[in-house]
């Protein structure tokens, strides 16, 4: 049983290290968000420190996998596992320091998911992973389970350990929150191409296509959940602008249409005034009486 527990640590640690690096590197603000032990570094060193940390995690994760079997057994495997223990031990100490100096900063362990302020859970998790890496030093090369019973035991131990780690990980709650969350349409970055595709697939497009004289829009703009697309057209021998308003929600969103004579003009809010004429407020401001 103890041997199984020690053996399970190597692949688990490798997955956590590689996953942690991937979660950090996959965000556009990588190295710039205010979380993780790197925030206590001077500003100019933060991004290099974040890159170095991620590279170390990736190297150790890959190293654990490479040295798990017969290849690299012995001294190389022990060195990688010892380095992993050192990384997690240093991490636990750094998180303790971070908690006292920057209580608002997250651990940054899994990038954007780790923005919750550092608590005893994150520090305990790092310390346990340090112990896990130390326990893996000296085990024989990993091999497939000899029997179904051993396979089930391995699986049970791995599941139990993952459960303990999950209980110590605020990232699980953040991940569930983000999985269940969708930004409202007015906050989504929606490419213009997607809007044009939705427009051309709509019944409104089929109804008004014969009015258009060009299929390339003259103008496109956005207001919240609506994107407006304008095409030149001709109706009853009169040149018109045909404007489609496409809602930016999901599939099947409505498309509204309007038309405007291209000769339609508008008057300025105030024409040239004589010196005796009070000047109208161009802002059309409201003012409490």
């Amino acid at each position, binding site marked *: 049983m103890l041997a199984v527990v020690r053996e399970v640590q190597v692949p688990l640690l490798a997955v956590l290290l590689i996953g942690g690096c991937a979660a950090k590197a996959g965000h556009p603000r990588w190295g710039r968000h*205010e979380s993780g032990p790197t925030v206590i570094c001077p500003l100019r060193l933060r991004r290099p420190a974040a890159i170095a940390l991620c590279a170390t995690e990736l190297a150790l994760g890959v190293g654990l996998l490479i040295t798990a079997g017969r290849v690299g057994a012995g001294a190389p495997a022990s060195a990688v596992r010892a380095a992993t223990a050192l990384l997690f031990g240093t991490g636990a100490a750094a998180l303790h320091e971070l908690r006292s100096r920057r209580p608002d900063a997250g651990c940054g362990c899994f990038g954007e998911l780790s923005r919750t302020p550092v608590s005893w859970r994150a520090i305990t998790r790092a310390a346990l992973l340090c112990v896990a890496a130390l326990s893996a030093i000296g085990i024989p090369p990993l091999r497939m389970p000899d029997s179904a019973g051993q396979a089930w035991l391995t699986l049970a131990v791995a599941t139990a350990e993952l459960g303990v780690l999950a209980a110590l990980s605020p990232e699980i709650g953040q991940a569930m929150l983000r999985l269940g969350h969708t930004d409202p349409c007015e906050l989504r970055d929606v490419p213009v191409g997607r809007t044009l595709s939705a427009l051309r697939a709509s019944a409104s497009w089929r109804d008004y296509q014969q009015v258009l004289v060009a299929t390339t829009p003259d103008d496109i703009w956005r207001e919240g959940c609506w994107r407006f697309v304008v095409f030149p057209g001709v109706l009853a021998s009169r040149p018109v602008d045909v404007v489609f308003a496409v809602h930016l929600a999901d599939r099947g969103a409505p498309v509204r249409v309007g038309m405007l004579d291209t000769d339609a003009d508008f008057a300025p809010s105030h024409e040239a005034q004589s010196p005796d004429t009070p000047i109208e407020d161009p802002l059309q401001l409201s003012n409490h009486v």
Partner: protein
Amino acid sequence: MAWWQLQSHSGQVRRNPGISAISHNQRETGGSARFARRALLRATIFEPRDHEVLAQPPAIAASVATGVVAEVGEDAIAVVSEQGTESFGVSSATETWLGARASPSALRPGDPVIVRHRATDAAPGRKHAQRIWARVGRVTGTIVAADGLEFLVDTRRADRPQQRVVVTPASSRQIQVRFPRLAPGYLIDVIGTRHGDHLLAVAPATAQPPYHAGHSPRPPLVGGPVSEPISGSAVWHEPGDEPNGLLGLAYPAIDPADGAPPADGDTGCVRLPYLSFGAAVLIRNECTERAAVLPVTGDAAMAREFCDRCVKCGTSPKGRVADLTMAAFVGLGGNLEDGCFNATLATMAS
């Protein structure tokens, strides 16, 4: 059944406040016809929300003039602008700002000024200056270099990429109390007077954020539609390449498809609906209870960096919702030396 109608709005648009502001700008700029056209096209589909702004007609016509002082007299000043020369009466009630409170007699020919004026009951045809700001300027950005009390600041504006700020010894204490870290990488926002190629900073516009530039806190996730109106702080910026009398605002959430500079995944600490340039928004000064519909005329890149509150009348929620042009800020009743007013913003999108 598909619905369509051919409309000509030449009559209706006289009453459309968004188009009023845009058409005022068109007179000023000779451009923006495209934005005015958008308002017309939008009105063919969605009902204009005029009633929300014109619920009460203005009791007093107030206006803003921008130009250069031509002449200073005992009871009047002459200002030259693109509209020609205008005369404004001054009195003991006129408040003048020239780096600090001053008398109108401190003005000199050649001083760039912005004047909030009104017609008086005694002389309806004559404009009386309520407030005059001379040489007023503001720099908001990231410090890129520091040498004693001189700083080079990146404002992230295409028309004014880096600006030089000089802090006067007399103002250094006041500024350093609010901006304790005047070092590269930190944010700065100061108001002062323009002198040639630099701004002479006399007052902080806000308190320095505790984070470095580019590290502003993330806003919470928003579930459901964005609740409008959105409250926050409204600030102002210098014209740069914009016309002096432009009525509009720079908006912190320009649609990425509009080609706005990439925000590096940073949307600021206020979640605002994406809008394109030229979109109309209803902005209200909660301190003076004045509101107006203004077009989006720029990208408020620096506004995204700040998560400060405005405390001119009560305490606003965190975040800057609008970066107004000087004329719009003053027209809504804001005082430039204050730096901000508590504001609410609503989009005109249905």
